[in-house]
């Protein structure tokens, strides 16, 4: 029997610029999360990152590839304190869609797959080296802030 899913959990539109948005009290009801972000940044063409359960340890690993008008690049980072999911070009309308796989599972690390589109086209895969269920998730930029009007939508998907 099919089960309706892709359930909206939270929807935020920023009324003023902030550098960090946190989703808290995420229920373990679902298997995967999908985060949809849309907006621009205040300055500096920042990168966007995820952090789970407030863990600021060196437990994040990610690979990414991107292409722009000049080049295509790939790179891998390990033992980072946040997980990269894309860039937020200043002055452009950016879209990021991040899939947080198995966020409620307690038998595996958490994989994040993301696509980011604006001045660059980016694909990333990340891993939070922790088997705990994700109960909170923060999205931040490494410089500047998410501008007013930036939207964040979080969905839950059962399995």
């Amino acid at each position, binding site marked *: 029997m*099919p*089960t*309706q*899913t*892709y*359930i*909206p*959990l*939270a929807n935020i539109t*920023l009324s*003023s*610029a*902030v*550098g*960090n*948005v*946190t*989703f*808290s*009290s*995420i*229920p373990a*009801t679902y*298997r*995967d999360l999908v985060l949809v972000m849309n907006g621009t940044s205040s300055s500096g063409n920042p990168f966007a990152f995820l952090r789970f359960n407030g863990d600021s340890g060196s437990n*994040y*690993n*990610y*690979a*990414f*590839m991107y292409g722009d008008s000049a080049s*295509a*690049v*790939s*790179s*891998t*980072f390990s033992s980072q304190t946040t997980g990269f999911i894309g860039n937020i070009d200043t002055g452009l309308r950016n879209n990021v869609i991040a*899939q947080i*796989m*198995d966020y409620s*599972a307690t038998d*595996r*690390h*958490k*994989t*994040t*797959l993301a*696509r980011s589109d604006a001045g660059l086209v980016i*694909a*990333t*895969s990340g*891993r*939070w*080296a922790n088997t705990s269920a994700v109960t909170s998730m*923060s999205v931040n930029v490494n410089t500047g*802030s998410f501008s007013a009007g930036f939207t964040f939508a*979080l969905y*839950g*998907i059962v*399995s």
Partner: protein
Amino acid sequence: MTLSALGIFSAAGAGGGAAAVPAYDLLFTTTMPSDASSLTLSSLNTYAADYKHLQIRISAKVNRTAGADDLTVRFNGDSAANYSTHVLMGYGSMLSYGYGGGSMFIPAAAARSTSGWSTGVVMNVLDAYSTTKNKVFRALSGEGGGAVGLSSGSWYNTAAMTSIQFLPVYASSILAGSRFSVYGIKG
């Protein structure tokens, strides 16, 4: 400055206005009870009347320690060379692209067996039940922190989808606990 979204509402309280029609449903999930050389999602034709596209979400591991594995994809049990794949993949500083004639595969789709590694695949099969179009999938995949891939595959056949089979390219088995979830998207 930090903004927190507190009090996430429940599924029962979620949803749009009265006119919203749910369009994305979980059809079934297969979690492998034991290691196996392949995994087949069958009886997909059961859902043809209600759905237009399919999405497969995968979290899999294989019996290989050297790195992530690719997964070969076959539609409707067709093991002949009726496929092609285009791939863009990042692995360390090596950005690669390629075309595979004769087969379909998803790069970096299954994690190595070494403790701690994990992977994810979000795969969409477009117009899965059309009988006039060749079938196409597109996927975003990656072994978290090790590799990331974008892929698209074509099956040169207009038959409606009945099954999807996944086989590891380098390993011999997909490991117990690997999860394959099938979703239907209405259209």
